[in-house]
């Protein structure tokens, strides 16, 4: 089995998973209105690190802030804290790999006013991060829009399953910038308020910054009390490059693939994308309905973190694991009243559960959708 042996969440809510979990349990969020930030003409609501916060932390672990971009520093911080939990891992081994999930990496370097280190090439950033830790295998950057974080985990699963690697470090991250914020504004996809996932009054998404890391390794059997990555699938809507399918086609097919032969009553949670745009949440409700998962508890974490893009798939997987470890299905912050044509089992309150398996679902531009099934070892 492929199991998670370490993890980290680095976000404006905190620099490790436990701090993040505690903050979310208290219902906290760093979503704030920003005016004049990065000279963006229109105000926006987002979950951002305080100015200088990443660099301060990075300096504290001995990192050179003049050598690494903000994006690279964020990735390194998250990976460093995850690796610290598993000091026996040989990072330099040919059997250890690094997979990076990001949508825009260091895109702010394209701005003619950019004065930071590094450049805009994702491969360059990947090399910088890999060399910092001493990885010797080629780092892969998975850049598959908003589903990148699941695609990266699926690529990692396969790399271990095929026997090519023993250990894979997956880090997902994105920092926000004038580039990304104005782009989403031009799409009219942003909400001026805190987002309201699956709610009847939802008006759009909030953007967020974060990094998250998960380290996978192969172990024999299921008697280990670790979270296992059971299966993963990526499917396309074949419909539109920027609009979700009205039939939830790709999400439904991805869910169908990962749940093949699985007793759906054992699934304690579907942690969905839930960006809070009118179309995304409606599409997911339709896909869940088609898969007969509309009675299964679902949640989304966008109300705490905003949409953290390349980080989302990893962050939301890790936080869901920690919540289920504590017997909790986390509340969907921002949700009040059902606003999808197919009612789904979503709640504004934390709920208790004894379930030890869940599905993570994401969808993104380019018509892409991904799902993964996770199960805790030792569980029935």
């Amino acid at each position, binding site marked *: 089995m492929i199991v998670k042996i370490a993890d980290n969440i680095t976000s404006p809510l905190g620099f490790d998973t436990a701090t993040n979990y505690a903050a979310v349990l208290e219902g906290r969020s760093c979503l704030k209105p920003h005016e004049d930030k990065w*000279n963006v*003409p229109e105000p926006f609501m987002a979950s951002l690190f305080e100015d200088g916060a990443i660099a301060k932390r990075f300096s504290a672990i001995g990192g050179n802030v003049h050598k690494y971009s903000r994006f690279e520093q964020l990735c390194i911080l998250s990976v460093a804290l995850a690796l610290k939990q598993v000091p026996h891992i040989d990072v330099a081994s040919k059997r250890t790999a690094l997979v990076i999930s990001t*949508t*825009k*990496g260091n*895109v702010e370097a*394209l*701005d*003619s006013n950019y004065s930071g280190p590094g450049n*805009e*090439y*994702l*491969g*360059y950033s*990947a*090399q910088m991060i890999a060399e910092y830790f001493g990885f010797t295998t*080629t*780092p*892969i*950057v*998975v*850049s*598959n*829009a908003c589903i990148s974080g699941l*695609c990266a985990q699926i*690529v990692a699963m*396969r*790399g271990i*399953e*095929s026997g*090519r690697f023993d250990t894979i470090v997956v880090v997902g991250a994105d920092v926000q910038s*004038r*580039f990304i914020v*104005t*782009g*989403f*504004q*031009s*799409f*009219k996809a942003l909400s001026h308020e805190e987002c309201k996932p699956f709610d009847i009054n939802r008006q759009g998404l909030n953007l967020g910054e974060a990094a998250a890391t998960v380290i996978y390794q192969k172990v024999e059997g299921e008697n280990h009390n670790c979270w296992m990555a059971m299966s993963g*699938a*990526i*499917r*396309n*809507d*074949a*419909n*539109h*490059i*920027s609009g979700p399918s009205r039939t939830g*086609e*790709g999400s439904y*097919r991805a869910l169908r*693939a990962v749940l093949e032969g699985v007793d759906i009553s054992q699934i304690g949670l579907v942690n969905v994308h839930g960006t809070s745009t009118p179309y995304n949440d409606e599409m997911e409700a339709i896909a869940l309905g088609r898969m007969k998962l509309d009675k299964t508890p679902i949640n989304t974490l966008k109300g705490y973190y905003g949409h953290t893009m390349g980080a989302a798939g990893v962050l939301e997987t890790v936080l869901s694991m920690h919540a289920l470890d504590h017997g909790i299905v986390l509340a969907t912050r921002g949700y009040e009243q059902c606003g999808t044509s197919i009612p789904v089992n979503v709640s504004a309150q934390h709920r208790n559960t004894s379930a030890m398996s869940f599905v993570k679902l994401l969808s*993104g*531009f*380019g*018509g*892409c959708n991904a799902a993964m099934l996770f199960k805790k070892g030792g569980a029935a």
Partner: protein
Amino acid sequence: MNWVRVRKDSVVINGNMLATESTGQAMLKEVYKKCIGDYPKFFKMDALCRLGFVASELLLQQESPRVVNTEHRAVILFNRSSSLCDDRNYQETIQDSDNFFPSPAVFVYTLPNIITGEISIRNKYYGETLFAVLKQFDAREIHDIVCEAFLDSMTLDVITGWVDCESDDDFEACMLLVARDENNFTPEFINEI
């Protein structure tokens, strides 16, 4: 195993040179008009998608009958420059506050995986779509990732290759269609294209 290679001044299909009169973007348009012609969305695409679209069409024209409407075919592409060609175009629209005109039609192409979506939409492929960025062309890495993609039992064949667009007129694509049981798919074969 069918393959195509498109460079800024040449198009080669299964080893045979396609006669072209122009270079760069003009050549992509020339090939579109001469060999494709029935998909006006082509003209809305950014340079990376035009490149990938032309390559995929030329590749799929070699297939008989042409497979459409399937979940069994994946599209897994790689490059070095991500979507930077369109990213630079978008940056120009927001660089100056006095000359600020961000456009969703430009922004949507600032993701490299959009080309995998364009190919899926054109052919009604519901299978896996994946885009990965490497520091440089690496046939071994491409080979290994594609072989591992067959661990998804739904996937019976994969459109894969390198689709890199550094600028409007500086690009390179090689694309091939790999079946699950294809023995000739090796890093050496990818290198020779």
